[in-house]
């Protein structure tokens, strides 16, 4: 199948690559760029395991074509930590036992990262609603809520870290 050249920025790195027009963004990230932290849990955009940040919005990369990301800036779980220092969201998830099998975790964290920029001081209900596009079968969400609260607190204490 004929390929299309796309240019985009992924985790701060400029990428230029030819892809089949039907290639899904999640497969492009996982199989072409070897960024396997973004997972596939369904293929109907319900579970959110494939959530990435695309131009400042949370999107489910299993229902976005790679060609749609032309010219975009993408952030995946691999880009959360900067200079070897964990992002507050990553710290929150481990400190509050917000993960078990770890499969939904990258999508959860990328969503939490964006949520906390949309709403830096969310209530518990706002966190539950804001995270409701991401499914988890292990934790029952209670510790995920705590993890996001932990991150919110930390980000507010150090505003520049965001």
């Amino acid at each position, binding site marked *: 199948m004929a390929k299309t050249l796309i240019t985009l920025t992924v985790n701060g790195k400029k990428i230029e690559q030819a892809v*089949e027009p*039907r*290639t899904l963004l999640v*497969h492009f990230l*996982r*199989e072409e760029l*070897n*960024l*396997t*932290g*973004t*997972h*596939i*849990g*369904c*293929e*109907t955009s*319900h*579970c959110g*395991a494939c959530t990435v940040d695309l131009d400042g919005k949370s999107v489910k990369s299993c229902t976005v074509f790679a060609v749609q990301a032309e010219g975009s800036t993408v952030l*995946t*779980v*691999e880009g*959360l*930590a900067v200079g070897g220092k*964990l992002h507050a969201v*990553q710290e929150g*998830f*481990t*400190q509050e*036992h917000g*993960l*078990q*099998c*770890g*499969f*939904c*975790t*990258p999508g959860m*964290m990328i969503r939490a990262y964006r949520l906390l920029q949309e709403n830096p001081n969310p209530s518990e209900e706002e*966190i*539950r*609603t804001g*995270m*409701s*596009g*991401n*499914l*988890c*079968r*292990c*934790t*029952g*969400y*209670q*510790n*995920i*809520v705590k993890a996001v609260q932990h991150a919110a607190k930390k980000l507010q204490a150090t505003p520049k870290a965001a």
Partner: protein
Amino acid sequence: MNAPTNERQQKLAGIGESRLRKEDARFIQGKGNYVDDIKLPGMVHLDVVRSQYAHARIKKIDKTKALALPGVLAVLTADDLKPLKLHWMPTLAGDVQAVLADEKVHFQMQEVAVVIADDRYIAADAVELVEVEYEELPAVIDPNAALQPGAPVLREDLAGKTEGAHGKRTHPNHIFTWEAGDKAKADAAFGRAEITVEQQMLYPRVHPSPMETCGCVASFDPVRGELTTWMTSQAPHVVRTVVSLLSGLPESKIRIISPDIGGGFGNKVPVYPGYVCAIVASIVLGRPVKWVEDRIENLSTTGFGRDYHMTGELAATKDGRITGLRVHVVADHGAFDAQAAPTKQPAGLFDICSGSYDIPAAYTRVDGVYTNKAPGGVSYRCSFRVTEAAYLIERMVDVLAQKLGMDKVEIRTKNFIRKEQFPYKSAFGWEYDSGDYHTALNKVLDAVDYKGLRAEQAEKRKKGELMGIGISTFTEIVGAGPSRICDILGLGMFDSCEIRVHPTGSAIARMGTINQGQGHPTTYAQIIATELGIPSDEIQVEEGDTSTAPYGLGTYGSRSTPLAGAAIAMASRKIHAKAKTIAANLLEVGENDLVWEIDRFKVKGDDAKFKTMKDVAWAAYHQPPPGLEPGLEAVHYYDPPNYTYPFGAYVCVVDIDKFTGEAKVRRFYALDDCGTRINPMIIEGQIHGGLTEGYAVAMGQQLVFDREGNIQGNTFMDYFVPTAVETPKWETDFTVTPSPHHPIGAKGVAESPHVGSVPCFTNAIVDAFAHLGVTHVDMPHNAYRVWKTIEELHVNK
């Protein structure tokens, strides 16, 4: 304890500490290694052609168009597997299952052919190009209808076989009859009963649906004749044995690796056709082959749970003392009996259905039935059929209480096995190891102000509002199990641990279990830390690679802590004994002159003379005592003397909107007793997760089929997985009643909250309608179904 010892104790982070998880670092940085993350040079992709019919004869399969597509390497059907005798495979339950449909399809989405292609997109294209011609046959969906005379015969391959793996078959669609307890004694109890109740109930077909679906990467090396397969398996060692038996390859040339697993919940215990086909394709092509199912395939074909059509009966005195229990179950196993349970137990541990109650006479019978649905019968976050059993008895005591006009707490406290009766032998023959049910329930009732809740409910009922209070006081049976009574395909259900202490005092430990999120790398190290005085942070835990780990039966049925946890303690104690000999030699005293304190052997009465485990480790490699083998390591295979019996007391409060049918869980209070607690943080996390899965099952999950056997909901659009919005907030509590036979007194915990909560939710829903004469409503209690109950009762006017 003085300050320095306290500090040393803390440094260990041993049993009882809420130690943060060591495995998190890779998961939060996107560096987990799940099956679909594995990429090997030359790897190709397998996809599956599936049946659109639930029951049909295959007239013809035409591969031509698929094979003509560039990038397609092979298309395999049952006829291609026949020469290898791999078109059928044995199941764990003593039946056979078609790997690829052989002449007939028996359920919708059954595997008919597989396509192997250069990438997953081409494979998916090729699946569409395989042309299969079918002759549709009448489908049998209802298990009771399947047993009627003249019902369509599903399994023609079993024609004329009146003996199955579990005794006599009474109908072509009948799999087995299994009985437990004493029928005559139970019948006699019913004959003289002052009061009896009977209730039919369905525990619907549900699916564990872990976030990661099932899959594998099979890589056969034709030069070395070795097969390595990365697989989403909760039991990699058993898979290795099965693959060896099926393929004829020596077990020593097969390596099964369970890498990081994205949740299992029972879904990843069986061996699936996709695994077999990927392995065959890799052997045929000499290239690595990846198969990863999608969510629709996962929900439609791999490992469902439950589907128990149950009738319970209780006999009792007028004042509420239970005198007898009878249960009959029609168990829908689907097209092949692929139940994942100890091989000789076709209904698993269902005969724990007398629950927490001292019932003198009991009898149960389960009839397994074939229908045109996917095979399975896995233990969805429970020990084999224990969830069904707990649901049955926890519902039945409520039914009895309502008949007697008795409080649902009183019926329980009156019939509980009392603390002093342990170890307690049930009417079904199980020996309950330990328990204190009254203390647990009382603690919960105080915490929720039960009397206050009942008073509030009475007020609400006067106003026509619907409020329900559900109670569940369950007992589990976990940790399968003693090899004298249970095995899988003849393999005793022990588990194992190997520990090596390195010269500088750190250690590596490997077990036959496999983590899927339960926290093994963290908690297992804590057991060793306490036993051997090596800090948890210096202990590496590895599982899941059959070439490095000792043989074990895997992780399911809450068996990791009861078995591997025990094996860890026992292996540690072997090392400890040797370490003591070495320490005595170093200190030039007799072993009897030494005492153990946290991380060191001390000479009695002389605090200044001691050797730490670290000192001992160095000596073990540097200068062992004369005549003693160098090194410091041990292996232990633990065959438990009994199961363990965790228990709990739960209360659920629901408010039902009588106009919409929406049931809101206002409060859920869960007290669990899992014996000794290794890591309270992880226990609490497991309980949150189990309660949430219980909530999902009770309130929304069901695999529904129409009359033709079409599955009606096999995506996350239709199959209910609660989000953070619906999920209730959980309150947890505990008591500690150690298991007397487990080396550290632990019982296992992760499944209790699922087993215990499902009946608690139903009991709360029924309780909301109890004053209107309702004794039972079947799950799931979604808004539509609850609204229908309200409509029937005319209370929404």
